[in-house]
């Protein structure tokens, strides 16, 4: 029986189904992550965002959630690379000429590339906000500091852009991989997927852009406002506290 399950999970159709399921899980995470991010726009000089972060960080189940999330990412990445490598092997000799007539878009043929860009971005992002020591003035302050630098903001915009392109193909594709296709609802899924890709990309891009356009002054002004209040952030915490700056925060 376990052999049967193993065969299912490692078959090419099974692997695609797992990619689809892990991808769906990651999309769910992104939606929650974005909702958390947008609290930065709440106009409370980051207080809402910081308290949101603290709520998550103080949840004792956070490490469990983080492990689960890391597993989702890892499975999705490994399966994706495995898939790309296997598919390359399936055509050892290529064509001199090839013309596309399918539903292929930039997003479709660049899934590996956009996926890898997102992966690199993920590493940067986690080291920025999850592994870095918490600044005494709080997470919101760190976000503003990061986004204020042109290079920092550019890296984030690039990562978020790659994510949007990735999702443009990903959403409808995951339904197909799970065998869910029907003339009645598939066109709707196509549209919803593209809408979701745009919304998520724009939503995540709001932070750097907002920081740039609206609030260099605000960022400076808000720093004292937020202060060290959270007892959680020690000077150098690799303790559960800093080790937890938010599930919703980092990977994306």
């Amino acid at each position, binding site marked *: 029986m376990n052999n*049967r*399950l193993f*065969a*299912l999970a490692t*078959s*090419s*159709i*099974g*692997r*695609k*189904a797992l990619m689809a399921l892990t991808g769906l899980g990651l999309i769910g995470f992104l939606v929650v992550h974005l909702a958390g991010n947008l609290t930065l726009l709440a106009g409370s000089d980051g207080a809402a965002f910081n308290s949101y972060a603290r709520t998550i960080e103080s949840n004792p189940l956070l490490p469990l959630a983080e492990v689960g999330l890391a597993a989702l990412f890892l499975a999705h990445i490994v399966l994706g690379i495995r*898939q790309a490598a*296997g*598919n390359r*092997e*399936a*055509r*050892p*000799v*290529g*064509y*001199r*000429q*090839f*013309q*596309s*007539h*399918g*539903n*292929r878009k930039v997003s*479709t*043929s660049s*899934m590996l590339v956009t996926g890898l860009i997102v992966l690199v971005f993920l590493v940067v992002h986690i080291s920025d906000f999850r592994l870095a020591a918490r600044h005494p003035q709080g997470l919101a302050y760190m976000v503003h500091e990061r986004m204020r630098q042109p290079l920092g903001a550019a890296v984030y915009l690039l990562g978020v852009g790659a994510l949007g392109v990735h999702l443009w*193909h990903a959403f*409808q*594709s995951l339904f*197909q*991989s*799970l*065998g*869910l*296709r*029907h*003339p009645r609802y598939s066109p709707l899924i196509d549209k919803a997927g593209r809408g979701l890709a745009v919304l998520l990309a724009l939503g995540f891009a709001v932070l750097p852009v907002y920081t740039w356009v609206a609030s260099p002054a605000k960022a400076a002004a808000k720093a004292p406002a937020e202060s060290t209040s959270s007892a959680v952030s020690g000077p150098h915490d690799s303790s559960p506290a800093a080790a937890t700056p938010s599930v919703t925060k980092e990977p994306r």
Partner: protein
Amino acid sequence: MSADHAPSSGMRLTLNIWRQSGPADAGRMETYHLDGISPDMSFLEMLDVLNVRLEREGREPVAFDHDCREGICGSCGVMIDGNAHGPEAETATCQLHMRSFADGAALTIEPFRAKGFPVLKDLVLDRSAFDRIIAAGGFISANTGCAVDANSTPVAKSDAELSMDAAQCIGCGACVAACPNAAAMLFVGAKIAHLGLLPQGQPERSKRVLAMARQMEAEGFGSCSNYYECEAACPKAISVENIARLNRDYLRAGLTTRD
């Protein structure tokens, strides 16, 4: 065929054709100039004209597969200017006519490329991988007794239609050829839908999909990235809905069969 030395009227073509003397040969593109081609000739007749001429010149004719020449057997199939079966939609190579090309055109003619379809010679492939996939389960085991009464086995109209749509697959391999991953999902999906939608196909449905998918992978075909190039290249316009059906039948069978 008599047109081969009549440069009078007709189309002039430059043909860049893949030549490979055998499976072990590395192969190369070779260029041929041909004139006097009638726009009403089929693409394969154009190759016939070329071959007659090559033979007269004592050269090796270009090997290519064909049988029915009426778009139903699935024997023919080459890449023409990067298009599986050429530039016309829903048209097998044998049904393609030279009027689809401009006079003076330079055409690139290559074999379908896939690890699962090794080239035997020139444009001829070993497509027995498809036969082995069928042999793994693409059939219905039934005793052929006397003919049963009509309508003794009811089939819903929509199922019958979808099944017949899928049954149009001629097994030419254009789906594999056009797929960037050289995946055979549309071929296998068509067989799964064709047999799995009919009542007679139910007893072996789970066994069939598991065995055929396993064989598909063993033959070295890639996996599906949902490019849908296959559907666009298919001379019978088999829908990628059949791939979704294959996916869900496979997952269902994998999760529910008990033997």
